[in-house]
């Protein structure tokens, strides 16, 4: 099977995230960057399918600035075979629709693909739709928010779990599948894996390489524009008391004072 995994580098959620004051895009320099936690699980799913299907290959695809190579290396050291990195200054500030079209073009350069795996929602943009949007552009079925994923012959089945319930979805390959944070525990890269990753091929594509016109992406032609942004003053703590056997009563008194009960 030819498996593609879409991986995104995101700001570490343990660090304080910011929008830059200039163009209101994500301030990527202000934070540590990591491979998105759920994308790691998509990589793990791909590796499990590869192990179960002889002759499979796993290609990771990332769109992002130069330093997204760290996220790519992580996926390769887990065991992915090769990577394609769409990296071009002109991509900065792309909206979700532009990102979708760009990724779909990159996938188009990869030849015959059986399965496209992705995370269900990236922790920074939280669009929660790019995989389904890519499926729409490519005319492929989208089986999203997978908690379980099985491929038998040419049929893929996903147990979709969201806050609204469980839906079992099926489709014929090729298809797009996104996974949720519960699907598996991603493996840690082994020392051997880390060393091997250094020799694995990473193809860096510019827009021109991927057949994308510069006018199709980037802040200037984005379909939506952030016109202003400001940090909200952080909430500061109020009163804190030690429980002396009357903690519950004190909260009740506070709530009465605030007219909340």
């Amino acid at each position, binding site marked *: 099977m030819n498996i593609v995994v879409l991986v995104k580098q995101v700001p570490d959620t343990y660090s304080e995230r910011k929008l830059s004051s200039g163009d209101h895009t994500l301030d990527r320099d202000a934070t540590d960057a990591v491979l998105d936690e759920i994308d790691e699980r998509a990589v793990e799913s791909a590796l499990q399918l590869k192990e179960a299907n002889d002759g499979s290959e796993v290609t990771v695809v990332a769109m992002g600035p130069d330093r997204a190579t760290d996220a790519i290396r992580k996926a390769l050291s887990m065991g992915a075979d090769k990577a394609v990195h769409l990296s071009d200054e002109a991509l900065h500030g792309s909206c979700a*629709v532009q990102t979708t079209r760009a990724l779909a073009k990159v996938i188009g350069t990869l030849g015959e693909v059986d399965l496209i795996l992705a995370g269900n929602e990236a922790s920074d943009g939280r669009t929660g739709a790019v995989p389904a949007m890519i499926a*729409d552009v490519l005319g492929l079925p989208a089986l999203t928010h997978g908690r379980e994923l099985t491929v038998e012959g040419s049929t893929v089945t996903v147990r979709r779990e969201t806050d609204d319930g469980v839906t079992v979805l099926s489709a014929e390959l090729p298809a797009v599948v996104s996974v949720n944070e519960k699907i598996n525990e991603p493996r840690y890269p082994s020392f051997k894996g880390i060393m091997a990753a250094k020799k694995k091929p990473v193809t860096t594509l510019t827009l021109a390489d991927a057949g994308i016109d510069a006018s199709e992406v980037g802040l200037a032609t984005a379909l939506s524009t952030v016109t202003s942004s400001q940090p909200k003053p952080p909430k500061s703590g109020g009163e804190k*008391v030690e429980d002396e056997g009357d903690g519950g009563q004190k909260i*009740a008194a506070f709530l009465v004072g605030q007219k909340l009960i």
Partner: protein
Amino acid sequence: MAEVLVLVDHLDGEIKKSTFELLTAARALGEPSAVVVGPAGSGGKLSEGLKAHGAAKIYVAETDSSDFLTPQVSVLASLVESKDPAAVLIGVSADGKEIAGRLAVRTNSALLGDVVGVSAVDGGAGATHSVFGGAFIAEAKANTAHPVITLRPGSVEVEAADGAGAEESVEVPAASGRSATVQSREPVTGGDRPELTEASVIVSGGRGVGSAEQFSVVEGLADSLGAAVGASRAAVDSGFYPHQFQVGQTGKTVSPQLYIALGISGAIQHRAGMQTSKTIIAVNKDPEAPIFEIADFGVVGDLFKVAPQLQEEVTKRKS
């Protein structure tokens, strides 16, 4: 006045509250038209509620297709083409986000995702985003016609309004690509408590609650306040409470009048889902727990002593 399409979220003949929020928000941009996609007979059951919240028109597309989400996308796409609406409004949910994204890319429209407010700017549509768990407020505008906007539940106060509710049945266009097929569906049915994203009071428990059985302490206090129950990820991962109740970065984003955190340390990812709550109360035995940094009132103590006492006080006041 320009039409604004509102996708109706419904289950078993019931309209979700988020749809009424959409119908209310839509009026800032034009005249709301409700769009119902569902099995045969859906339209009739829903029209009364839609009219009572200002729907001037109700487009009904009845289908028994087992295609996953693509009927909704196709119906909306054909209405965008034929009606040229001022905007399309969809509620934030896993399904809603995907329908919106697909519609935006198919109709070459701006996607304004997960917004907390909608307004008219320079004749177009503008939206307010609350990002990184409310740490930033951003204003965005659409650069295209018929932007697709997803509105976060609970961000708009529902207002009733009379609408003509003229029904018009529409076809589900043939699929433009292949779809996933729905084999089975088990919706989560909300219990007797309010929905997390709709509740004005939420009582949440964390790892400090200790076990699934002991979550009854959280539920007891919640029920005395008519509140929804929430949980931290550690509580969910430990199997104390089901995932759909998780609050935070990978759970629900909530902004109630009152949020009571019991045995929750206040990790940044938990705070991302609740720090815009109007009033925050924390009970934690660790005086250094970061939750106290954002609590309006905090008690350093054992939740198993403090919460039952608070419940007793609340119950006393009610009688």
